[in-house]
């Protein structure tokens, strides 16, 4: 029978190998960012947790202002402030167990500190006396990653390795809205979903990648929607609502820990400060927009909820502020001391053992240092 003769009988059908891989419906994010504070859900939140979040938010805000002040005094080379994003930073740290891992980017010093890393050690990168100042294994915090989104596949690999070893460890990786455009974001989410790795991705959508607004970054319905393309659930949450972020992240962490696979969470928030102390935000955004977000401040939202329900008295507010001041004073005092630098350290950790080439160069530097000490000028 020729093709022409078959024509009448031909009925289009899908190719034999095709079948839907998964139902996209349950993976879709809510239409509106999830909120707890000021809603009925707040009544179900643990008051002790809310008070802990509050104290950490106050501390976090103070950390941001103190670190920014240190840039003006020449004690920090640069500081990318997370003022306005404290709810995300703090909730990320508090949603994890001790054995879990946090993978921060350079704007996430707050989350690193909230996880227990020494505030001075967390600033080593930004002071510039070394790259990573803390031991990643002490608090299970990966080094602050500067190349955007490149830390996401690390989180996937670590979570995958933990699962292969039979450990119920979860990795939580932080990234910004700009970072979602990077190829590593795509590859990390794809690997995570294929491997069903116990990992949670938190996108802090703070509105800007330095100066470029989200509209120039993506045409997706929301960043949370991107999850569907990888076959993992996407969650959309109010990033200034610490209780909501904590709940959504805790759910995702629990899901990952119990074999449910990865989750992508988009937290809608706002970068109140400029990109860093070296940036001028007035070149790309107006005061009215910033003010609208100041009126949706994460600390005020939580404070209003707690005081309204009689869960926070003036003494507790004062105690949180005192604690933050003490932290800032300690940070100031320790950051005002010059760090001890040993130039010979430059050669100490390039390889387990220096190569013959590095040994030669180390000898050269040592000779230069000795000549310097003898006051010799050529």
């Amino acid at each position, binding site marked *: 029978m020729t093709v022409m003769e078959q024509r009448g009988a031909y009925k289009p059908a899908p190719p034999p190998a095709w079948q839907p891989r998964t139902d996209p419906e349950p993976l879709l994010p809510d239409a509106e960012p999830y909120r707890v504070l000021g809603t009925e859900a707040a009544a179900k939140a643990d008051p002790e947790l809310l008070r802990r979040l509050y104290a950490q938010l106050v501390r976090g805000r103070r950390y941001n202002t103190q670190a920014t002040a240190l840039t003006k005094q020449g004690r920090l080379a640069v500081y990318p402030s997370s003022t306005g994003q404290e709810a995300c930073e703090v909730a990320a740290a508090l949603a994890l167990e001790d054995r879990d891992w946090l993978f921060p980017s350079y704007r996430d010093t707050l989350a690193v500190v909230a996880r227990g890393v020494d505030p001075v050690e967390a600033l080593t990168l930004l002071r510039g006396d070394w790259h990573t100042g803390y031991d990643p294994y002490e608090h299970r915090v990966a080094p602050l990653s500067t190349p955007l989104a490149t830390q996401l596949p690390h989180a996937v*690999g670590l979570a995958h390795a933990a699962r292969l070893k039979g450990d119920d460890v979860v990795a939580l990786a932080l990234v910004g809205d700009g970072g979602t455009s990077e190829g590593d974001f795509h590859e990390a989410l794809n690997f995570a979903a294929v491997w069903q790795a116990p990992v949670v991705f938190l996108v802090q959508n703070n509105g800007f990648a330095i100066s470029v607004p989200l509209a120039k970054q993506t045409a997706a319905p929301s960043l949370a929607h991107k999850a569907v393309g990888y076959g993992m659930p996407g969650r959309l949450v109010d990033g200034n609502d610490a209780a909501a972020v904590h709940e959504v992240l805790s759910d995702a962490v629990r899901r990952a820990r119990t074999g449910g696979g990865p989750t992508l969470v988009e937290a809608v928030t706002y970068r109140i400060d400029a990109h860093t102390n070296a940036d001028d935000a007035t070149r790309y955004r107006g005061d009215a927009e910033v003010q609208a977000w100041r009126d949706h401040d994460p600390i005020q939202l939580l404070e209003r909820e707690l005081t309204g329900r009689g869960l926070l008295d003036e003494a507790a507010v004062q105690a949180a502020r005192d604690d933050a001041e003490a932290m800032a004073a300690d940070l100031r005092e320790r950051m005002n001391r010059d760090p001890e630098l040993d130039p010979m350290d430059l050669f100490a950790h390039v390889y387990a053992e220096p190569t013959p080439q590095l040994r030669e160069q180390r000898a050269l530097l040592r000779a230069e240092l000795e000549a310097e000490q003898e006051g010799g000028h050529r």
Partner: protein
Amino acid sequence: MTTVAVKPATMAQALTRALRDAMAADPSVHVMGEDVGTLGGVFRVTDGLAKEFGEDRCTDTPLAEAGILGTAVGMAMYGLRPVVEMQFDAFAYPAFEQLVSHVARMRNRTRGRMPLPITIRVPYGGGIGGVEHHSDSSEAFYMATPGLHVVTPATVADAYGLLRAAIASDDPVVFLEPKRLYWSKDTWNPDRPTDVEPIGRAAVRRPGRSASLLTYGPSVQVCMEAAEAARAEGWDLEVVDLRSLVPFDDETVCASVRRTGRAVVVHESGSFGGPGGEIAARVTERCFHHLEAPVLRVAGFDLPYPPPMLERHHLPGVDRILDAVARLQWEAEG
């Protein structure tokens, strides 16, 4: 004297054996990459590993080189020893950011607290009739990245010994496998593999007195042929197989050049900004008073790798090597 039964084995078989022995000896060794599982790799180097050790130990990954190396970083952070396969030299480029920004720096960044024992296997070089993007010699990129070891075998025995050493190393190693030597055979006893070869030592493959050919990987065999042909011209050429580009074995190389007084560097990679410039400079700095002639380079041309029907004009061959040897100012000797 007991004799060990030796039979011919290919470089690919020796590499497979090295992976298998490393996986059997250490449960933290994981092989991962594109097509390394069920298929056994496009060059069959991982043949049988998924079957023997399971797919969790020899894993077919999604097709994404940055993701492969990036997830390997996280696995190494958690105490595993990943061995990553980049399918071809030119397909490794998407992984460059992970390699340069994280793999090479993590130990240094963390003051030695977070070493990354990752082996990155890269089939490289031409001469196999490959179409575009299948024949690059990208070693200069890796050499220019502090924090990486860069190793390449030229013999069946070294393929085993160096790969075992690379996997055992606590530093990241870029392990460059000369594609056209995959099927080269040598008498090598797969039942009693050679010892692990220390990384960082060159080997004199053929002793000689007239001049030193400094080479590595796929060009070693070409240099051996050139040395054989040179006998007719009255030259007794020494062939030094560098084996490790980082660290570089200045000691062995300079001892050879001081003996012979003349040197030619031979590699497939282009000469401008290529490994030969660094090697020639190192030799000149250290052996200037022993040199009878400038150090010359015989390399691939400085052009994008040619289409397969023209590649023989690009690759350094015996004639180009002998022409260079002829230019080593012999007349001054008389």
